[in-house]
């Protein structure tokens, strides 16, 4: 009996553990450690219509229990994904989400249109990347704008759309509701918190892009609070993420209402972290004699 199985937008996942966009490449990088089919799924590196070189300068900065990154959506572009990468990964026995970013409305829509050519199960619409100057997070900061782009994307996409939300929005619950009303099939949160670093030795700002995205165990309580708030405000399913490192973290996000969880930064620290989470959840469900899916939202109902 698989006690971890969950359904997400009509997809059967063997477990709720999904690797977060930007931390798992295109699914093959970690195959040297374990078969990606052991995962519930993974979300691709953020894709944009045109290839992007990403940001210049320092891109990583470690903090106490956290990580600042300023990658800036470096990716080979949607056509390379559709034509070259997708055929290589499509038969992996795990749920693959295509994470899509954009610099303006048309670039979002055209990228999404081109994904209509392939059978990607879910699009994760990234309106929350803090590391690009144009687009990105700008679409996720206000309910009106988030709703508008969601609606337009839904109109051109033949695939289900999960909108990835930014914790930097002033009215996160408002943004979440606006996305739901605009037709979003699901939500994922949180993307990284905006942070910065100054190197006291050089007296300079560390990142060329000044601000950077903050992730890792340090953000978990904030992420958990936000997942709890959003799950209480919408009826569509939510993937929860933000600092999840252990099976206990994962369970807490599900108790707060998340149907699935994503692991990001923890996989950098320990490539086997997702497997340890899966094992831990299995043992817990076995010991408690429960089905994991029955625990979704249990802390709030």
């Amino acid at each position, binding site marked *: 009996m698989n006690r971890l199985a969950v359904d997400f937008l009509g997809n059967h996942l063997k477990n709720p553990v999904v690797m977060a966009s930007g931390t798992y*490449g295109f699914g093959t990088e970690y195959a040297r450690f374990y078969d990606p089919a052991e995962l519930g799924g993974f979300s691709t590196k953020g894709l944009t219509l045109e290839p992007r070189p990403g940001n210049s300068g320092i891109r990583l900065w470690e903090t106490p229990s956290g990580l600042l990154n300023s990658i800036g959506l470096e990716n080979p572009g949607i056509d*390379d994904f559709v034509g070259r990468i997708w055929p290589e990964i499509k038969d992996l026995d795990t749920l693959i989400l295509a994470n899509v970013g954009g610099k303006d409305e048309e670039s979002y829509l055209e990228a999404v249109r081109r994904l209509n050519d392939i059978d990607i199960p879910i699009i994760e619409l990234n309106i929350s990347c803090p590391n690009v100057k144009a687009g990105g997070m700008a679409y996720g900061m206000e309910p009106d704008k988030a709703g508008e782009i969601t609606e337009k994307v839904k109109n051109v996409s033949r695939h289900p759309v999960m909108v990835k939300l930014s914790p930097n929005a002033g009215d996160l619950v408002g943004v979440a509701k606006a996305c739901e009303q605009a037709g979003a099939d699901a939500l994922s949160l949180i993307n990284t918190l905006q942070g910065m670093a100054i190197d006291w030795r050089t007296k300079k700002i560390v990142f060329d892009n000044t601000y950077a995205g903050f992730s890792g165990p340090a953000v978990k309580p904030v992420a958990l609070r936000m997942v709890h708030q959003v799950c209480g405000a919408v009826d569509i399913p939510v993937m929860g993420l933000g600092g999840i490192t252990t099976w206990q973290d994962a369970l807490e996000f599900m108790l707060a209402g998340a149907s699935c969880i994503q692991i990001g930064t923890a996989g*950098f620290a320990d490539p086997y972290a997702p497997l340890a989470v899966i094992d831990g959840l299995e043992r817990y469900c076995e010991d408690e004699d429960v089905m994991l899916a029955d625990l979704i939202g249990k802390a709030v109902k």
Partner: protein
Amino acid sequence: MAVIHKNDEIADGIFLMEVELDDEDTGKPEPGQFYMVRGWDRYPLLSRPISVFDYEELPCVSPDGSTEGAPVTRVLSFLYQVVGEGTELLAELSEGSDVTVEGPFGNTFPEVENRLTLVGGGIGIAPLYYLAKSYRRDHRDRSLKIYLGFAEESYAVALFEEVANSVTVDVGGFITDRMDVSGYSDQDTVVTCGPAPMMNAVMAKIPAQTKTFVSLEARMACGVGACLGCVKEAPLRWKMTDEGLVTDGSVHVKVCSDGPVFEREVVE
């Protein structure tokens, strides 16, 4: 997992750590590769990329003195400099402590059939020793010249002297001033690792027909090409493969998985 055999400070802030690999899954390194090393549980968050200084498979000696059919002890060495929180913690570890060692990662130095020159600066000498040793093992009669530059004090020189035809050491000056490259041709290969200004000076000095490789370091989160935190600008957009240099259409090269070893044309 691996167990520390020794972890000695061989110069100011420079440590030589030997670990015994006790996990079958941890592969055997090729010269130029690195491991992600951590000697702690959760904090600091990330493991540290450290290049292979040496690797040996030593037969275990049974009580009757024979080594036949005996399992081997796999000993991996890291030469590292204390530069921050992670390496400070590594330096505090004592014999018998456990460290987590994932890898090996990255590409390797090229197979060199002709004469080899190595130029290392400071802790940049670390990946060159295993290369020197492997080259000497495979080519007993070929020329191996080594130049080692240090800012304040030299270290590990005696090890290099055991395998090289000549070792030239400079302390406090410019190692490139000590190099005589007249007569270098396409029958020579140069490999360099050290501070960027030193590697640039090496690349500027070596004639164009002499193949020259650099080994880079970078901040890394994953070590396997997923996080894109370690990329370097590669104006020519080249990538090294088994078939040689090819363009792969990417604007950056990943130090961790495309490198850390690059032909000089890629990074010059």
